[in-house]
């Protein structure tokens, strides 16, 4: 073996942008490889909760005579409860997976193991590593949404079939992509701000309320009688994802104005993303 340790005689000089792209692609390839290894647990984690939700609300309750669905008949304009739930459960699947996909590994990498240090030594600006985390989190959020979709479409009791309209698919794609990006930005922000031992606390005080009050089980408009709650839940990002998916999938169910939700999703993504990258850099360069 010859002196392969010694410095290279010729330095490769690719353009700066091409160099960034190569590094970005390598970071993404690393995350994809790790994800592939955990594909089964990823799928299980993603589908169990929405499947149980749809099972209880669209199969069990109607069958045993608790008319959860009928109770919504008025507000939901005669829709089956499953029709209300499909966009909501897809939304919560995206949001919860999108956040956890980024937050959980990041907290480990930033604290006990400092594994991320080596990636930060790549010859790219530190924010590139953060942008990759956002991109990969969005991929996982999107994948989660796509896994939840068929599950919640197919499971329902007799006469409870959801009525979902895929006609406006460009809008659907836009909503799915924006929602995934927003949630992975949120994941990055939480992951950089959170002390490692607080992960379960976050689940209890942040994710569970977000889910329960995220217009997953009811359209936002039906909260009208509880005005303070209707206003209060507007801080919850899941509300906008649920409502945007309602606008795209079940346009006959009452939903927020499309322009408004899209604007909130877009601006929210930019602001959260900016904050998250700033916070990420602050954690990595002292």
């Amino acid at each position, binding site marked *: 073996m010859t002196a*392969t*340790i010694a410095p290279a005689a010729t330095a490769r000089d690719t353009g700066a942008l091409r160099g960034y792209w190569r590094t970005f692609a390598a970071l993404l390839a690393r995350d994809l490889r790790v994800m592939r290894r955990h594909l089964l647990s990823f799928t299980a984690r993603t589908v169990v909760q929405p499947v149980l939700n749809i099972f209880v609300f669209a199969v069990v309750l109607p069958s045993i005579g608790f008319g959860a669905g009928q109770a919504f008949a008025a507000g939901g304009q005669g829709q089956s409860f499953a029709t209300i739930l499909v966009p909501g459960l897809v939304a919560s699947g995206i949001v919860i997976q999108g956040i956890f996909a980024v937050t959980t590994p990041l907290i480990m990498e930033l604290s006990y193991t400092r594994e991320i240090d*080596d990636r930060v030594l790549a010859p790219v600006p530190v924010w590139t590593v953060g942008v990759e985390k956002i991109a990969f989190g969005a991929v996982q959020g999107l994948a989660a949404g796509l896994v939840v979709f068929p599950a919640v479409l197919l499971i329902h009791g007799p006469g409870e079939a959801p009525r979902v309209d895929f006609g406006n698919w460009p809008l659907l794609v836009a909503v799915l992509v924006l929602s995934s990006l927003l949630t992975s930005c949120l994941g990055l922000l939480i992951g950089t701000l959170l002390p490692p031992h607080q992960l379960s606390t976050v689940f209890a005080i942040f994710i569970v309320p977000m889910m329960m009050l995220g217009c997953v089980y009811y359209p936002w408009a039906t909260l009208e009688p509880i005005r303070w709650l209707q206003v209060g839940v507007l801080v919850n990002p899941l509300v906008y994802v649920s409502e945007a998916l309602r606008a795209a999938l079940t346009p006959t169910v009452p939903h927020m104005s499309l322009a408004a939700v899209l604007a909130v999703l877009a601006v929210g993504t930019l602001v959260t993303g900016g904050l998250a990258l700033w916070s990420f850099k602050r954690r990595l360069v002292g």
Partner: protein
Amino acid sequence: MADVAVETSDLKKTYTTSSGAIEAVTGLSLEVRRGELFGLLGPNGAGKSTTIGMLTTRIIPTGGTASVGGADVVRDPLTVKRRIGVVPQYNTLDRQLTVLENLEFRGRYAGLSARAARQRALDLLELFSLGPRAGAKVTEMSGGQAQRVMIARALMHHPEVLFLDEPTSGLDPQTRVNLWDVLRQMRAEGSTIVLSTHYMEEAESLCDRIAVIDHGTVLACGELAELKSQSGPETVLALTYDGEAEKIVGQVRQMDGVLRAEASGTSLRAFTRVPESILAALVLVGPDAGLSLIDVRIVRPSLETVFLTLTGREYRE
């Protein structure tokens, strides 16, 4: 100057913490030449990791400048990152990946194609006698193996300068010596290496030049022989008593053969060139003045006497 690999000038870092400011590096200047194995020697908390952090773009200095191969670490961090390989003080291997993948992905992060990265990774693993461990999980590595994987990983993109932060701390003596051989071989092949250590023995036996640092500044810098001549060929007799040594230091200074003497707390240090001829008389001084002798140490001219001379304190490893 073309032959300067690393340069710092009045480099400073003050950490701001909730409990106040910590001056970790307080004006550190040094120069590492191309092709040398340079040691940063200092006790725990001296500022070694902070200095290496600044040189490797991970910590932003609060004063002064630093550059690697002429590229400024603050203004041009990307050029610096392209030129350096880093082995941090703690194991930062990617636990989700195998040994081989750790190397491959480091190469790809640095811009190598997947194929080139794989080939380079296999070559390096072979070179570091890690070939059979290529597919192993990094959590299954022993301390010495993990350290070699970290070094191999740091070399993936052919860096001009390799930084190692306390690479042998926590390793058993045999593994440490093996690692020294690896570093010596790399140096022989023309690599520039900067390593920090708190082991005097490591600096003495391994490094071409040594910067002795404490409290964030360079106390002395040069080849071992130069450093030793700075403190003279003096031996230090270090005595510890059960009471204040101050009350006998005057008397010790009057003794024949004692060049200097100083006391701090219960310890007394006498600098001499003829330790054998004064030792017998010296140990009697304390008991005569009512002090019991607890410990006597003879410190021959070495980095330790350099440190003692420069700081007036014993080196705490």
